[in-house]
Structures are given as C-alpha cells and as structure tokens.
C-alpha cells in the first residue's frame, strides 16, 4: 500500500475512507478499510464475491452508515451532510437493477419526480438513446424487461441525477459483448467530458483492465491492495496474487 505517497500526490480525493468498519449482527462485513478514490478517475473495484464490495458502495452512497470510522466526500465528513444531498452527489447504480412499479418511463422519471419535477418525452427519448435502448420500450412495464434492458434503464435513471461521483455495481453483468462495449464507452466518455469520478465494481478482470485507471482489490471485507496496475501486480498479498493472476497488463 502507498497511502502516504498518494495522499500527497493527489490532494483531491472525491472519496476518502478512514478506518471504516461495518457489520450486521456481530458479523464483520467491512473491516477497518482505509483508502481513497481519486477525483476524476475511474477506479475499478475488484475482488471475489462476498468480499464486501456492494456493502462498501452502499456506505459511500449513505444507504448504510459505518459502525466505526469516517467517510469523507470532497473532504467533508459524510455525517455532516444531509443524507439526501449525499445520495444525489454520490449516485449509485445498484447491483440487481431494482425497478419501481410502473413503466420504463416512470422509472426514468423517478429521480426528477422525487424532487417534484417531471421528465419530458424528449428527455426520456434522449436518455434511452444514450444507453442504446429504443424509445418504443418507454411504455413497457419495467419489471418485464430482460436483465440487460433493466441494467441499461437503471444506468440511465441514475445518470439523470447528474451526480459528480458515480458508483457502479456490476452494471454490465447481464449484457452481451456489444452492449457492454457501448456502456463502457458511455461511462468513459462521461468521465472524460464531465470529469465525473467513477467507482466501478466488476467481476470481469478484462473489463477492469480496460476501464480502470486506479484499482482497489478487496478480499474478505478488507482492502488488500490499492493503486495503479503496477501496484496491484506487485502485491505481496497471497489472495491478491491468486485473484489477479497477472490479468492486469
């Protein structure tokens, strides 16, 4: 780990975790995690399933609170900000693409509706186009979409909140290769043109390799390695070595 050096070389970190722990019923899920997500970069968050990746993103979005430690968003303690503004500033695309009852358009309109605004038909069509979905789907029951279509609606929906930090939880897991490429392009473009900080959980190491500029490797609730590709490849940790197996190049 090179916490100290990266702390001084990147003074602005969109998200900083300081000794964060979380657990349910005396079971530790996140264990004293300290680390950061650099501003304006895409961080690939990898690790075996059950490592606590999803839980970590929920902590950053404020859906749950640490039982110990602090999380800082742009240098400000999360607990000092209103949960609602944290959740809009640090948007999350949840792992299983949950849909509220209603049509695809209802689901897309949700972020605006929650603020008492409405989504115009033109906006809805443009948003669908952005994630590569035909506008004919807008009137369909959202719960009857395929897994891949739901994932795209879910991404589009979160993007409508115009968050400065985006947390993505395995958002391309049910997509075919060409759709996956479209989404990767979309996120990379968002990151480049709008300087949005991205934290992207993926179980696909090739994807991590393609999109990641910075890496977190979590195993068993712990942050075992953090840094660029070289840092991860040079890791001394046996679990990290076994998990990465030289895929990052």
């Amino acid at each position: 780990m090179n916490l100290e050096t990266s702390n001084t070389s990147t003074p602005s970190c969109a998200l900083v975790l300081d000794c964060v722990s979380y657990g349910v019923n005396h079971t530790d899920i996140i264990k004293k995690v300290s680390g950061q997500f650099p501003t304006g970069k895409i961080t690939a968050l990898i690790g075996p399933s059950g490592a606590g990746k999803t839980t970590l993103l929920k902590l950053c979005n404020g859906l749950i609170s640490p039982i110990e430690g602090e999380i800082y968003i742009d240098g400000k303690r999360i607990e000092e900000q209103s949960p609602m503004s944290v959740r809009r500033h640090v948007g999350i695309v949840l792992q299983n693409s949950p849909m509220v009852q209603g049509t695809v358009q209802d689901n897309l309109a949700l972020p605006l509706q929650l603020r008492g605004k409405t989504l115009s038909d033109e906006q809805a069509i443009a948003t669908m186009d952005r994630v590569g979905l035909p506008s004919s789907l807008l009137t369909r029951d959202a719960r009857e979409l395929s897994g891949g279509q739901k994932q795209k609606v879910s991404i589009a929906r979160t993007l409508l909140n115009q968050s400065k930090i985006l947390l993505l939880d395995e958002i391309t897991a049910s997509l075919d290769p060409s759709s996956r490429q479209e989404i990767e392009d979309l996120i990379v473009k968002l990151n480049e043109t709008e300087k949005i900080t991205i934290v992207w959980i993926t179980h696909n190491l090739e994807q991590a390799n393609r999109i990641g500029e910075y890496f977190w490797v979590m195993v068993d609730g712990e942050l075992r390695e953090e840094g660029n590709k070289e840092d991860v490849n040079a890791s001394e940790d046996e679990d990290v070595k076994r998990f990465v197996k030289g895929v990052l190049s």
Partner: protein
Amino acid sequence: MSWMTLSLTLIFVFIPLLLSKTLNLGLERDTIVAALRSTVQLIAVGFVLKFVFDSEHAVFIMLMVLLMIVAAVQNARHKGKAIKGITWKLFVTFVVIEVLTQTVLLGLHIVPATAQYIISLSGMVIGNSMVLAILFINRFTAEVETHRDESELILSLGGTPKQSINRQLMKSIQASMIPTIESQKTIGLVQLPGMMSGQIIAGADPVQAVQFQLLVVFLLLSTAAMTSVLLGFLSYRSLFTERMQLMKIDVE
C-alpha cells in the same frame, strides 16, 4: 336467562373441544383459555358497568373509556414490536379517534350523553380500531419488508423516507380498510349484526334497533379509515434511522 340456563351453553364450548381433539387440531388449550377469559372478563365488566351506570358520574365514565383504550393498546402493541414507540402511537391513535367520534355524537346530540351510550359506543369504536390497528401493522411491516429493494432504490436516488415507502403505506391503509367496507356491504343480508340481534332479543323495536345499527355502521367506517391513516402517518418514520436508512424489520 338464569345462570343455570347459561351454563347449558357450555355445550357450545365442548363441541369445538371435541372436534379439536378428534381431528388433532391442537386448539384445545386456546379454546379453553378463550372460554375462560371471555367468561371472567364479561362478568367483571358486567359488574363494573352496573356500578358506572348507577353512579352516572363523568369521572367513572372517563376511567372506563381509558381502561378500554389501555387494554386495546396492550393487545395490539405485541404485533408492532418492529415499530419504535408503538405503545404511545397506538394510545394517541385510539384517544384521537375516541375524542373525535364522541365530539360528533354528543356535540350534535345524536345520542344522549349517558354512561350507557358513551360506554357502549366507545367500546365498539375502540374495539374496532384495535382490530384495524393490528391488521394495518401486520400488512405494513410485511409490505415494507417485501418491497425493501424498491425503497432502497428510492432512497439511493435521494428520495425521502416518506417517498420511499409511500406506496407500501397507501397499500396497507387501503388493505386494512377493505374488510370493514366489505362486511358492511352485506350487512343485514348475510348476517344480522350482533348488537342489533341483542337489542331485538332484549325486546327493542326492530326499526329502532336498525336505526341504531346504521349509526354504528357509519361510525365504524369512519373509525377504520382514521385508525389506519393516523397510525400509518405516526409510524412510518420510526422504520428509518436518523440518517434516513430503512431498518431491518423482524416480521414474526
């Protein structure tokens, strides 16, 4: 009816006992407890009521109503352990409904302000309110738990706690009111309401009994609506932490 003849009605307790035993329903204990409790409670209430009616004193009437409310709270609160502060929330709900309904009934001189009327009607209002409260709590906690994903999604997008469970709240309010509305649609056709039957047996004029029953029907419709809405709006916030996170609910 003499106490002797009444004891003959124990036949109606033995029938379910016998059935439960032969069919292995395992309801013997509960049946005996139910029969014993209803006997003791009703006889006690009979004597208390006689005393209160004879004295016709406002303090005794209020004490009696308070006792009913406390008993109703006691009964319903076990179902709502998941909701913090359920005891006082139920108490507030029952008190508000009791005060509102009595204000209308007595204020507009719909019924005379005597112990007989106040206590009987309060009993029906509070009893019904209690059943509604239990129905509502059961449904609400189950709805929230089943649709956890949706609530979490709405919260994650920056929604308020209210927005995140609004659908579940409305659904539960609606569902808990349906039995009351439905049973009143068939009233008089399928079954004569217990109170009306009682009055008729006691020799009252059937038309008078019907008038009074109609009053009760309308009263209970109002009670049903108010119970679910009041309790719903008092309770939903306590399912969330102060950081607006939906807590885990232990549904029994």
